[in-house]
């Protein structure tokens, strides 16, 4: 039962994070493609945004390890 709980926690967190990351990357790629001169600021925002999204599934993995 604990393995199931860990799997659910990790999978839902990964699902949310993948959606969030895809939104960030999509917006950045669109922005750079439209205005290549704004590449620096857009990459900066992307580099700040992606770790914020990724922190959630990493904490979920930690919780899963503690459950198991």
């Amino acid at each position, binding site marked *: 039962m604990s393995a199931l709980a860990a799997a659910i926690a990790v999978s839902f967190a990964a699902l949310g994070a993948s959606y969030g990351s895809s939104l960030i990357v999509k917006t950045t790629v669109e922005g750079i493609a439209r205005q290549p001169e704004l590449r620096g600021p857009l990459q900066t925002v992307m580099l700040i945004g*992606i*770790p914020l999204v990724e922190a959630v599934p990493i904490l979920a993995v*930690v919780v899963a390890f503690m459950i198991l």
Partner: protein
Amino acid sequence: MQEYQQMITRQKRWLFYYLIIVVVGTVATSFHSIFNGLLLGSVVSSFNLWLLQCRVQKLGEAVVKGKKTMGIGTIVRFTLIVLTLFIAETFAQYFHFFAVIAGIMTMYVVIMIDALLFQLKD
């Protein structure tokens, strides 16, 4: 572009200083398992940050040149973190589990502090 390079340099510098402090703590103090855990997590976190910076840079270049690129390395980063947690759990006598988690979270703390100090100021 210059602003991105400056941010990368700043983040690397902060992480380097933090790693030096952790290494000194590992050698000089008697809290070996805690500092070992912090060191393990921080090294993995530094590698993850470096990988993310490289991949974001390559993604930007690929978009400008109209080429294709292979993602931003999320799977590699997650695999490394799971492997680190597995090592920490297996060798629990050497690595404090929560210290490893704190070490892994270093990257996010550095990015957030850097963003708050330098991005919001501009």
